[in-house]
């Protein structure tokens, strides 16, 4: 079934040119990638947005259980960085993982079915929203313990180097996770191994300002988060994570650098979680409505839309068509998830051991 990935999947030859140094310097007349590609990103980001909104609705209707963490506001980030994904790379992230799965090529149907706990889900209804895996497309999960996956990402990167695959790891984690011991222990190893070119790992710190209800300022006295990488000898830079064009430009350079050197590199992407922490989270005592409204002014999808309109790359009619198309993809995914069967009860006992057929164990002794 259809994925949301770029239609004109880039080959090495037709990588669109990057112009300017990103950020402020890039005016509408000098968009760093060709407009067809940008439109394609716009379509992907919009599809992710509508997907997340549909998931939220389904959650409130009780069709999705457990936790549901949405990526609303952060779309430009994964879109920009995963544009640099090449076969063999390994992507690992926390529980806010729907966008990563979709961008890497999991079908909206499979991801939505997973959220619905159906047998047709991306991991057969056995992981749910927080544990999306799609290894053949490069997604290595999907983890629910904050910071807990960071050491795994560093180990995956070591393996890439050891096996000389030429692949790199993109390791996503939050501003909350950086205070976890697991980060610091793993970052130290990454710096160390990287000296010998043995850790092609791009740390992507998604600073969305909050870890649940705790702002960056309330979690650390040293709020320049990326500077923490200095402690481990890992070079780093910041990027405006709301502006896709800037993200693309930064991602291009950062990924190339990691690929070439085998050393870790870190990006602190400044972004904002527009949605509540989780879909069940109605009380937002830790931030004001005004603050969220202010952040919405830099909604990454609107920013991109503005750029495209100003550049004359698209007109309202085309935008409407893209919206209609994205909506249809998401509606189809929901319908599919809804109509899919629950996992067969036999699935309860499968996948426990890699060498399969251990006798199952009755819960009644």
């Amino acid at each position, binding site marked *: 079934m259809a994925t949301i990935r770029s239609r004109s999947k880039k080959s090495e030859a037709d990588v669109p040119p990057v112009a300017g140094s990103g950020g402020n310097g890039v005016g509408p007349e000098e968009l760093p990638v060709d407009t067809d590609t940008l439109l394609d990103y716009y379509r992907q980001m919009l599809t992710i947005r509508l997907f997340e909104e549909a998931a939220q609705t389904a959650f409130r209707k009780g069709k999705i259980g457990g936790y549901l963490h949405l990526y609303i506001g952060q779309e430009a980030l994964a879109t920009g960085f995963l544009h640099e994904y090449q076969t063999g790379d390994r992507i690992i992230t926390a529980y806010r993982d729907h966008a990563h799965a979709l961008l890497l090529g999991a079908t909206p149907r499979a991801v939505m079915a997973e959220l619905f706990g159906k047998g047709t889900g991306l991991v057969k209804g056995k992981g749910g929203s927080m544990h999306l895996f799609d290894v053949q497309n490069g997604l290595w999960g999907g983890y629910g*313990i904050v910071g807990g996956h960071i050491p795994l990402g560093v180990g995956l990167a070591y393996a890439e180097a050891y096996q000389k695959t030429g692949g790199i790891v993109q390791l996503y984690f939050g501003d909350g996770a950086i205070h976890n011991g697991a980060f610091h222990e793993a970052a130290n190893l990454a710096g160390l191994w990287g000296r010998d070119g043995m850790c092609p790992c791009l740390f992507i710190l998604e600073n969305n300002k909050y*870890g649940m209800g705790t702002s960056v300022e309330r979690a650390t006295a040293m709020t320049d988060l990326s500077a923490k990488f200095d402690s481990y000898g890992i070079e780093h830079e910041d990027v405006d994570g709301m502006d896709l064009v800037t993200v693309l430009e930064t991602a291009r350079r950062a990924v190339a650098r990691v690929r070439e050197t085998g050393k870790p590199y870190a990006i602190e992407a400044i972004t904002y979680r527009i949605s509540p922490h989780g879909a069940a989270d109605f009380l937002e005592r830790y931030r004001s409505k005004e603050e969220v409204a202010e952040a919405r002014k830099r909604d990454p999808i609107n920013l991109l839309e503005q750029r495209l309109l100003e550049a004359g790359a698209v007109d309202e009619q085309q935008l409407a068509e893209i919206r209609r198309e994205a909506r249809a993809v998401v509606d189809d995914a929901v319908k599919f998830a809804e109509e899919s069967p629950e996992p067969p009860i036999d699935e309860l006992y499968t996948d426990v051991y890699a060498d399969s057929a251990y006798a199952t164990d009755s819960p009644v002794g």
Partner: protein
Amino acid sequence: MPVMTYREALRTAMADEMERDESVVLLGEDIGIYGGTHLVTDGLIDRFGPKRVIDTPIAEGGFTGAAIGMAMGGMRPIVEMMTWNFSFQAVDQIIQNAAKVRYFSGGQVSVPMVIRGPNGGGVQLSAQHTHSLEGFYGHFPGLKVVSPVTPHDAKGMMLSAIRDPNPVIFLEAGALYGTKGEVPEGEFLVPFGEARVAREGTDVTLIAYGRQVNMLLRVAQTLEGEGISAEVIDLRSIRPFDEKTIIESVRKTHRAVVVQEQWRWFSVASEVAAIIQEQAFDELDAPVARVSGAEVPAPYARNLEQAAFPSEIQIATAVRRVMYRGV
């Protein structure tokens, strides 16, 4: 007697002790301004201020370790694990320091602290967010481990836990925070190591703790219609363990079924079964039955999750089996 929720009972106990004893402080993630993920600590930051209700970064190992230091230094910290699933990140601190430092310091220090939070599954949180850790923590000498199911016991055992001079692992019934019950006002302590007879009966002894106690009460009701009189025992305290109440009951009924959400292997039910056969072998008219969680990581889908946990049907079947009623 006032009626309150399990959540309020816990909050009342903590607030009362904080009022009484200034050395009691709370630490945890989002327990202050956010109000607590399960609202157990809601409002306490307004009453006691941020020095006593301490919002921490997400670093279970770090803040649990710091709290152990506070306790060694004479404070009485209460640490909230947002859920017990995250305590694995603090296991090194809990087991290597809290449980042992008294022993390897030759009795020179003690660790009067409580680590509390929701435990157990039932709300589709899937593999990493679903555990019942009574057996796990109950394994380690140096820790006390309790698991109350009623609001009454939630308060009475929390008061005991805060005053206990040892580290107490306080496993709350996460699915029951909203359930209501009668809770005495003021100070009353439910001592550790005393099981509660939740229902009297003569034909079979049903044993559990936490939210499975409520299932047992419903099953006992059903069985009554079949002429089976079931006694229900709520263990409440896993370490120390009340062997006496159980053995007395088995001497009366001659049959026992032990129910738990956790996995069967190396579990509380296994220990209970072993204790019964050791101490009342000649009294038994049937082997002790155990009903446990399926031996798989917790699945996500609702039907799979339900299949992974003990059901009332499974429990009733186990009872009929030990009664030798046609199964």
